[in-house]
């Protein structure tokens, strides 16, 4: 390991791509966590009715996800978005937003690598976005 003592102390410049990624990550993660708390409060308070009644959950969460979803007509993939006005699906949407955060961050840094013509990094970023988008698309279903 090459160690270099530097007179610059802790004045180290954070790379621009890293700085931009961190900023988007910070604000979108905060928004996501706030949304989770808000929607969960709505869910538990009963202000809006859920798809699956809370008192029925203890009978259902012992079964696998396919059986539970089938019992209440909740489709896999993005089908649950049809029920977005139900409180449990709102809470699920907030959790789903968290999974969107890395895609947003990758999209933010892509123009930096394009501008710098860093082709290897451009390739990695585009491939990662494609993989995350494929996972998010709902095409990869488990029967």
């Amino acid at each position, binding site marked *: 390991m*090459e160690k270099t003592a530097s007179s610059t102390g802790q004045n180290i410049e954070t790379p621009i791509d890293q700085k931009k990624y961190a900023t988007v990550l910070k604000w979108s993660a905060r928004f996501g966590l706030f949304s989770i708390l808000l929607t969960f409060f709505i869910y538990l308070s009963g202000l809006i009715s859920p798809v699956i009644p809370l008192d029925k959950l203890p009978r259902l969460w012992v079964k696998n996800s396919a059986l539970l979803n089938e019992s209440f007509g909740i489709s896999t993939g993005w089908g649950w978005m049809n029920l977005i006005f139900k409180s449990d699906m709102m809470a699920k949407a907030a959790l789903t937003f968290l999974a969107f955060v890395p895609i947003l961050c990758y999209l933010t840094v892509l123009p930096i690598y394009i501008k710098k013509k*860093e082709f290897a990094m451009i390739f990695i970023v585009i491939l990662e976005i494609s993989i995350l988008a494929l996972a998010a698309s709902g095409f990869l279903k488990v029967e």
Partner: protein
Amino acid sequence: MNSSKNLVLFFSFFMFLFFVFFLVPHAFAAKDIILAEETSVGIPWWIWPLSLFVFCFGLGIVAVLAGVGGGVLFVPILGTFFPFHMDFVRGAGLMVALAGSLSAGPGLLMRNLASLRLCMPMALIASISSIMGAMVGLALPQNIVRIALGLVILAICFVLLTSKRSEFPEITKRDKIAQILGIHGIYYEITQRKNINWQIQNSHIGLLLFFLVGFIAGMFGLGAGWANVAVFNLVLGAPLKISVASSNFLLSITDTSAAWIYLNNGAVLPIIAVPSVVGMMLGSQVGVRLLALTKPRIVRWLVIILLSVSGLMSILKGFAII
């Protein structure tokens, strides 16, 4: 100082009572789906999210004190002691690891402790394999998942017991992949009061190992900090601080890929995931404050014992012995 110690003692005692009188009986009651349903229905619904919150709060403290990710503790313990199906436990486990990683990420990146360039290629490989792992995990019957999870947990205990970490590994030769991608960096080492330049080696071996780690993380919904740090530090030769921080940040990308599979297959229930996420995050904050008051070595041993018990019970439950 004394009041903080009393608080730790009180909380430990409370967690012990909670564990012995509430969780353990359910572990034995949840031998099959009918018994699990009886256990689950016999208690008012709101007790479950509340106990999840309390349990995850304690887990968050322990995880920080023991220096392991919360995700690796969450799935085996929750899967053993709560009546939820493994699909929902793994879905919640990924959300817990993801939320923790997302909230820690910005600080680690801004202080140059986590490296974006180091993580991106590793995350790409681990994302692909974690999606594959998630699909395999959801397709397998619950008893097979329990047996495999138990074996993986016992293997993790072995890794935790035997792996040695190196503060500043020696780099003999910087490899081609690292040169092309510009993977190197500099950070301020507060203990030495100077800037440390770092670089890596063996990227090709690291990429292969991250494929394996991603698959296991996706299949069992485990955060993969236990393995990421070892690969970054011992194989790639990144300094320990960079390895720990980059591992934490990497989870936010790899767990996302697997989380999407669980979300799209309806395996993330807000009633299980949200109290777990909030409890774990608050517990981690308390854990950081208590870090100075406790002996991490003892906590680490306790965690290894707890994990071993959970691993063994998971195997026994998989074989329907308990």
